[in-house]
Structures are given as C-alpha cells and as structure tokens.
C-alpha cells in the first residue's frame, strides 16, 4: 500500500488546529456590575444573557419581541415609542394597533430592520434574531425573568434604558407595595399549608415546579406546590402523584385556545378523581393564561388572584 | 527474462492459496496459465499483476520488484485485461481507452495530441476505431473485451496480463481475441501472460503453458510436452484423448463421452422392451447410429413412446392386451434379422411372456443374445414363477450375460473390434 499517512495526517491536524483556535476566539465578555444609576447617555446596560450593550442616546424607537415586554413598555408609559410588536401582543389594546414584526418565536429580522429601532427587547428564545441584529449593529437587550425579584429588576432595567427613572421607580414601588401587602396577609395564615396542584396542560399531564413563576406565586401565597422543586421546569407527571398527594386546591389556566381548555365540570368529573379533596370541595380555580405565562406588572395581579384562591379567608 | 516470479506464496487470511511459485517469462513470450478451478491461477495472475502482494517471495519486472514500484510507474510497464468488463457506466469507448493514459499523465496535465494519437493507435489495432464514440454499455461481449485490450494497450505496457479474457465470449470472438494477441506479440514484441480455461485454445496459441494444481505449479513447458493424457488425468481427474496433427505439433484434446467409438461397424439390434426400462439403452444405441428395432411393446408404454420418438421400428401390441400370435411372429422375424437381440431387465406378466419365450428360442438356436440382468428375476416375475423358470433356462444357454446397458454396449463393441481386425 502506498498510502501517505504523513501528508494527509498533517493536513488533518492543521485543519483541526485551525478550527480549535478559531473556536476560542469569540469569548463572551464577563458581566459587569452596573454602577451607573444616572440617566446619562451613552449608557451601558447588562442584560440577562450577560451581554453589555451601550445605548448611545435615549431610545425613541423601540421594538418588542415578546408580549411581556410589550406590556411592560406600555405600563411604563412608553407606548408612543413602540414601533414594532409581535402578532401575539394583545395587552393593552393599543398594542393591537402597532406595526407587526412577526410571530413570537419567528420575528422577521427584515421587518425589525425596517422599523429602524434604537432598542430591541428580546427573550431568551430569540438567539437567532439577536445574532442577526447584532451583526447589523442594532441594539438588543435580552430579558427573561423567572421570579418576582427578577421581574422587578427587569422592569427597572428597561425603564432605565429608556431613560424614564421616575416613572419606573413609581411603578416598581407600587408593585412592590402590593406584593408586601399580600405577604403581610399571608403571614397571618393559620393551620397547615393548603396543597396546591397547578395544571399546565391535561394531555399530557403537565405541571409546574417550584422554580417557575407560578410556582413562586403559589409559595408566596402560602400554598404548598405538590410538585416541589424539579430540574424540569414543566415536568410531565403521572396521575398517581395527584392521587397520592391529594391536593386541596387545583389551579389551571384558560385562554390557550377556545376548545382545548377543560371546563371545571370536566375536571370534576375526571375518572378516579372523585375522592380528591379539591374535587369534593369543588376548589378548582382558573387563571387567565396570559397572566401566568407572561411576566410583567400583571404578574402582581396574578399573585393576588392566587393568594385569594389559596387563602380566601384572609381576603374578605 | 522480463518477468521473474520467485518463491511466491499468496493467501487470504490464514489460508494459503498459492505456495512457492517460481517461474520466468521471456520477452515476447505468450504464457498460458491453466489448471482446474481453485488451483490458484487467478491468484498467481493477481500477484504478478501487482494486485495481491505475496506473503512470501518477490515478483520482478525487468529485475525490479513490482511491489516496490509506485502504482503509476508499474502501470506504465504492465497492463491488465480483466475477466469481466465492469463497463457499467455510459462512458464512450474513446473515454474508456483514454483512461489507459492515466499512468502517463501528471496530476494537472491534460491529455495531449500524443495521448490521443496513442489511443487512436490502440483502437485501430484492436479493430475498435469505428466504435470510438459509442457508449460502452451498448457493446457486445466481444467488443467490450477488445475495448479493454485497447485500454491496456494505451498504457503502452511491456507485459500484458489477461484473466480469462475469452471465457464469456462466443467462439468467433474467442478466436478473434487470440489472433489479436498473436499479432500484438509478433508486431509489437508484447509479452502476454494469460489465465485461460479452454485447454484447446491455450494449446493452439500459447508458447508455453504453466499448469497449476492445488496451489502449486505442477509443470511447465510447451503445449506438446505438457498436454498429455496422463497429465490431464492427474490434474483434472478425467479421461481425454489427445491428438496431434503432426508429431510434436500443438495437441488437441478430445472429450470422451461414454460412447465414443466411431461407428465403423453398423449393427442391427433388436430390443425386447417394455415397462420403461429401455431409455438409456435406446440412447446409447441411438448415439452409435445403429439400426434399432423393438418389440413386442404395448402401445402407450413409455418404452413404446421412446422407441417411436427415436424413430425405431416397433412391433406393437394393442394397449394393455396380451401379445397375439401375429405380433409374436413379427417379433421373432425381427430378432432373426438383427445382429443382436437384447433383453433388458423388463417385468414379465402373462401378457408379454411370449417375448421371453421368443428370446429363449433365439438363444437355443445360437443367435447372439445379450441379457441385461439387473436385479433378480423374481422381482420382475408377475407370472407366478413361469417367467423365472424360462429365464433360468435362458441363462443356462449361450447368452452374453451383463449387468448394465453400458456393459451391453461394451460387448457389442468388443465384438465389433474383433470384426474390424
């Protein structure tokens, strides 16, 4: 055999080396502490993806890639500056009149470019779009809060980026007050914590773990989530767990799509569930999906609703 | 010596297919490698054509070890014409032959006018020039083979290796290829080493033959020296007749089927058949070209059908009936006319007992009778013993007693020999 290992071996090695070296080139910069509390531009902001973005001037044209961000922008009084939203942005009503730049997971980069935004707010599933927008020097901030605290800091960050310190502080302040109010009431609760089962979806049976937003709301409301902490945020569960833990309250969300939501009747009549506490006491509570699945000021509304459901006796 | 094979042993894995082969090929020689299947012919050729490196030994082309040569260099000196075309893709003939120039071209070198000239020459010498633009997939077997030879020629080799190039070809193509190789040898000084299956073909065209048996070289030499009846018997395990047109000339092998005597003597034979036992005998008789009559056989009987088919004259009886007086008379008449009467191991019932009695009478009269006694008469006797008695009497009289149709034929041939001399 006259096979020249040397030559081809060298070529291979060279290729791999080249690849390896090049692969290490672009390293993410480390997140920096955000000391600049003032409203001076240019402003450096660190987003949830650890990216440091510098805004040269106050953003007057803002595009939102997520209904949650849209709600926050409107709540901060920045509705006028919005030049692009997704087709799913429906709250508040004024959002429906805004120009559309695509769906939730499929934003159109071209449409975003055409809107000439100074700032784009994205979620953590928009990585493709973020990369593309960065390539054409459009400022993108990625926010994906999962807890109440993170929601507040996100609203604060967005407000700061937009240059509206005062409005932001007011909004966040009032939201925090309401949260404290709920906490105070819950502190008066007596007796064992009610066991709560939150159903995300019925086929397959999916619930939410403690590490999700709704999970946190349940905890803040003094309830005990029968799922607890789990690595999977929205685990598919076996019916047996429900029968085993015998929850006192069941919550679910409606509004996914008209014909698919189970009615309370249907839930109460599910085979094998007759002896469960919440079926016996008819304690099935529905929550509007958008309150639970989105983050924003309305998350506090959600908290209040959940608290009332868990401890109705404290909220008369 | 242009090619030297020195102590070459080849094998695959743990099995050795060729052991310790040593031979030399002279320039301009036409060497034929022959031997039974599995004797290592193809392996030897593969080793010599730089395809299968030997486990031991060396192969030299003009003093140089071919396995130490770079592939392209080797391909400039030796070329291989394979057994099967492998021409499954619709290249043109010219494109295929042009591939023979690959060993002469450097990586980026395009084919030049000289290459085209050489290809043209190769096509011309193999008589395929007018096929140049045809697709190889459309060619006949002979044409494909010639194209492969043309491609090999385009390599401008000194030695041509051919692996059974004619095995799948019609007779006319076989001769055509061999004649072409002859021409190339004498006109170009090409050396050819060919594995060949057909011994007669090899004998007629090769200078020397190398005979392989069970992975070893059995012998080598000119066809006249090598192809003897003894060698064929020892290497191939069968009998043939070898003849030479003139003394010391190229031998021709003649296959010897069982019936192989030229029928100089013409016999008339009467077969007392019936019951389906005469098929083979009829066949042998037919091959000999002798005149055959049969009787008395019932119409519809399988022996009757066979006799009729062969065109023998048959003394017939009606189906499933007894033999009548008239038929019996005709039967005896036929026996008297014949040189031999043969009684195969037919079953006897009351219906055809007259046949047996007629044969006994012939034998007692002294007419030549051959009785084929296979199995016991008792098993064939459906007459309750009467047939057996007559049969025993028959055997005691002067008859040729044999055990098979072949032996019956042998008896008649021996006597024919006697007649001839």
């Amino acid at each position, binding site marked *: 055999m006259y096979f020249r290992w040397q030559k081809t071996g060298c070529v291979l090695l060279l290729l791999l080396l080249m690849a390896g070296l090049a*692969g290490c080139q672009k390293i993410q910069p480390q997140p920096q502490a955000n000391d600049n509390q003032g409203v001076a531009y240019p402003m450096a902001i660190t987003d949830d993806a650890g990216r440091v973005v510098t805004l040269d001037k106050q953003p007057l044209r803002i595009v939102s890639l997520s209904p949650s961000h849209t709600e926050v922008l409107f709540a901060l009084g920045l509705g006028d500056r919005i030049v692009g939203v997704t087709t799913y942005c429906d709250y508040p009503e004024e959002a429906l009149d805004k120009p559309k730049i695509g769906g939730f997971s499929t934003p159109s980069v071209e449409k975003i470019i055409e809107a000439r935004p100074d700032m784009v707010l994205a979620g953590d599933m928009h990585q493709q779009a973020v990369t593309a927008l960065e390539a054409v020097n459009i400022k993108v901030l990625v926010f994906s809060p999962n807890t109440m605290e993170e929601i507040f800091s996100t609203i604060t960050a967005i407000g700061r980026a937009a240059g509206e310190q005062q409005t932001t502080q007011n909004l966040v302040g009032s939201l925090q007050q309401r949260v404290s109010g709920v906490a105070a009431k819950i502190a008066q609760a007596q007796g064992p914590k009610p066991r709560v089962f939150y159903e995300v979806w019925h086929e397959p049976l999916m619930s939410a773990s403690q590490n999700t937003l709704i999970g946190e709301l349940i905890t803040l409301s003094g309830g005990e989530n029968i799922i607890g902490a789990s690595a999977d945020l929205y685990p598919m569960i076996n019916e047996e767990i429900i029968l085993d833990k015998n929850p006192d309250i069941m919550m679910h969300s409606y509004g996914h799509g008209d014909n698919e939501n189970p009615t309370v009747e249907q839930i109460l009549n599910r085979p094998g569930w007759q002896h469960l506490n919440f079926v016996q006491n008819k304690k099935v509570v529905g929550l509007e999906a958008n309150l639970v699945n989105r983050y924003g000021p309305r998350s506090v509304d959600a908290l209040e609703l959940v608290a009332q459901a868990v401890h109705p006796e404290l909220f008369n | 010596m242009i090619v030297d094979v020195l102590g070459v042993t080849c094998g695959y894995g743990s099995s050795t297919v060729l052991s310790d082969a040593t031979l030399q090929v002279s320039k301009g020689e036409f060497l034929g490698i022959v031997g039974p299947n599995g004797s290592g012919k193809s392996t030897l050729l593969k080793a010599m054509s730089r395809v299968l490196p030997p486990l031991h030994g060396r192969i030299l082309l003009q003093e140089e070890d071919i396995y130490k040569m770079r592939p392209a260099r080797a391909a400039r000196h030796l070329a291989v014409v394979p057994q099967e075309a492998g021409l499954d893709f*619709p290249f043109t003939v010219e494109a295929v032959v042009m591939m023979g120039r690959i*060993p002469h071209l450097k990586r980026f070198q395009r084919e030049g006018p000289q290459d085209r000239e050489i290809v043209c020459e190769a096509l011309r010498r193999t008589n395929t020039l007018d096929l140049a633009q045809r697709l190889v997939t459309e060619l006949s077997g002979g044409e494909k083979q010639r194209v492969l030879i043309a491609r090999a020629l385009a390599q401008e080799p000194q030695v041509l290796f051919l692996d059974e190039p004619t095995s799948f070809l019609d007779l006319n193509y076989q001769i055509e290829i061999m004649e072409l190789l002859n021409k190339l040898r004498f006109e170009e000084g090409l050396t050819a080493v060919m594995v060949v299956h057909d011994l007669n073909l090899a004998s007629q065209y090769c200078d020397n033959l190398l005979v392989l048996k069970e992975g070893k070289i059995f012998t080598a030499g000119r066809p006249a020296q090598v192809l003897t009846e003894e060698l064929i018997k020892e290497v191939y395990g069968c009998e043939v007749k070898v003849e030479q047109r003139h003394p010391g000339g190229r031998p021709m092998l003649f296959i010897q089927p069982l019936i192989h005597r030229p029928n100089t003597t013409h016999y008339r034979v009467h077969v007392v058949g019936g019951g389906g036992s005469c098929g083979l005998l009829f066949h042998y008789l037919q091959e000999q070209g002798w005149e055959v009559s049969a009787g008395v056989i019932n119409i519809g009987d399988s022996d009757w059908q066979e006799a009729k088919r062969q065109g023998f004259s048959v003394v017939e009886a009606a189906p499933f009936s007894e033999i009548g007086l008239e038929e019996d008379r005709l039967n005896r008449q036929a026996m008297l006319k014949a040189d031999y009467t043969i009684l195969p191991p037919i079953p006897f019932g009351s219906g055809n007992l007259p046949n047996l009695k007629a044969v006994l009478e012939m034998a007692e009269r002294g007419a030549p009778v051959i009785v084929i006694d296979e199995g016991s008469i008792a098993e064939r006797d459906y007459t309750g013993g009467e047939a057996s008695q007559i049969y025993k009497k028959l055997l005691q009289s002067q008859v040729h007693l044999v055990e098979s149709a072949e032996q019956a034929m042998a008896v008649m041939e021996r006597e024919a020999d006697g007649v001839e001399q």
Partner: protein
Amino acid sequence: MQHKKPISIIIGLLALSLIILMLIGIGIGAVWIPPAEVLSLINGHLNGSSSSYSGQMQSHDIIIWSIRFPRVLLGAMVGVCLSVAGAIFQGLFRNPMADPYVIGVSSGAALGAVAAILLLGSLGLKYSYSIPAFAFVCAVLTILLVYSLARTGGKVPVMTLLLAGIAVNSFLSALQSLAMFYSGDQMHQVVFWLLGGFSSRGWEYIWMFMPYAVIGTAIAFLYTRELNGMLIGEEQAQHLGIDVERVKVMLLIAAALLIGASVSVSGLIGFVGLIIPHVVRLIIGPDHRVLLPMVALTGAVFMVGADIIARTVIAPEELPVGVVTALIGGPFFIYLLRGQKSSLYK
C-alpha cells in the same frame, strides 16, 4: 447517441439561471423592496456610495446587503457543497443511491455540530469555527462506520448501503433526540437549527463555512480523473496505476469537509446530494471532469431556488428548506428505487 453536447452552452445557461435566481432571492423577503430599488442598492454597494444612505434607504440597504445577500450566497454555496459531496459518494460507491443524507453522514455531522453548540454554549463561548470542525470529525467517523458496515466482498452493493444508512441514521437520530432532551434552554435553538434552513444566516456564517467548503471542493476537483477510474472498479483502477486507497481517503475527507461545513451552517438538508448528481449525469454523462463543475452549478441553482420556495410558499412564515428538498427529493428517491429494483438482487 450524440454525446458531444454543447457543454459550454449548458454551463452558460446554468450560470445565467444562478445569477437570476440569486437576484430574485435578494429581491424577495418579508419587507417589500421594489426591484428597481434592489438593483440600485446593489449597484450602490458595489461602487461605494452606500455609506451615505440614511433613513429607509439605509435600512433597505442593510436588509439587502446584510440579511438577504449572505443568505442567498450561502444557499448557493451549500448547494454546491452538498451536490459535490453527493457526486463524490456516488462515484466512490459506484452507486446512484448514495447521498450524504440517505447514508447517514449528514446526521453524523449534525450530531457533531449539535454537540459543539451545546458544549460551547454551556461554556459561555460563542460558537464559531469549531462547529464545522466538530461536524467534520463526526462526518468522517460516520463515513467510516457506514462504509465498513456496507462493504461486502470488496464492493458496496445498493442493498447493504441503504440498510447501513438506515441503521446509522436511526441510531444517530436517537442520539440527537437525547442531546435535545438534555439541552435545556438551548433546545429551541437546536431544534430550529436542525430543521435546516438559511434564515438569519449572516456574513459570519459565510466566513465560518468558507475554508472547509473551499478546501473540500478543491480536493474533489483535483481528483476527477481518479474518480473516473474508480467508476470502472477498484481493482481495475489499481491496474491503471491509481492509488485507490489514497484516492478514497482524500475524497472521503473532501466529502466530510463539505458535509460538515454545510450541516454546521444550515442544519439537515437532504436529497440534494442524491438528485443533482444523478440528474446531471443523465444529461452530461459520467465523466467527472465535466460532471463535477456542472453538478456544482446545478446544486447552487437548486438550493437557491428551494430557499426561495421555502420563503414564499407560506409567507410570512418560512418553511424549513429541508422540507422543500425532501418534498422534491422523496418522490425522486422512490422513482430511483423502482429503477434499481431489477438490479437489487445482484
């Protein structure tokens, strides 16, 4: 049969179609830009006046130049790579059914790329040039696996090749699903990428992809003569002085480079390597010296066309390009299989 087709005319036509399709590709998108403006923007970019744009003109220029142009260009180049890789496989395996996707090599490369994305993502590294390298290595391993599985008695018959491809594909798909299952919050991105497509592929993808693609294509073109020789059988190729083993290795490396590069940038796009070489061979014949360039051009045209279809058929949503090529390629594959049935039992 007349086989001296006017090759130059065909090449000219193909090149023209490519340019036209690319222009169409650049002219189509979510935002409507009139053709005249498209042309003048391209022109402006070429003569340097684009830096002075502002307002809507500027955003249109950005769309044309930074979003659409690289996408279309990448589509063309991936088309070249996949079809040349297909031609290499079909020539090496002497088998018109060989295609990077069908025989599982694309899946192997995809797995490598997925692993790279997840690995680097979890380290906080921005994925770049390493991805095609990972994909290349996995492609090589997959090729070796499939080849050794399918080879019987020195040949690679249709039957065993397809079966080996199915087996390997199934196994790799399972591994991919596993990878996705464990990818956590990157799952969405991985799934999206695996589906195959050119959306949001900017210039940096082109830079990432280029070296591998160029080297792979160059090697393929270098060995066209040997590929011709391999078509008549490995043993006979050896007789012609071709170093068969070495040629095989080089060509397989080239194919792996091409596939690894393509899969890294555009995910799993199947059947291109199957259809294009086969169709072109029917028209041009098996001589690789003309076949490869034609295949490359045709592949580019096909891919750009498929991407245009993917973008417009359910606008404003986008179909993954892999779906378009599968819809065209699947029936073609079945048709090929029927033609092969008679020879399947050899």
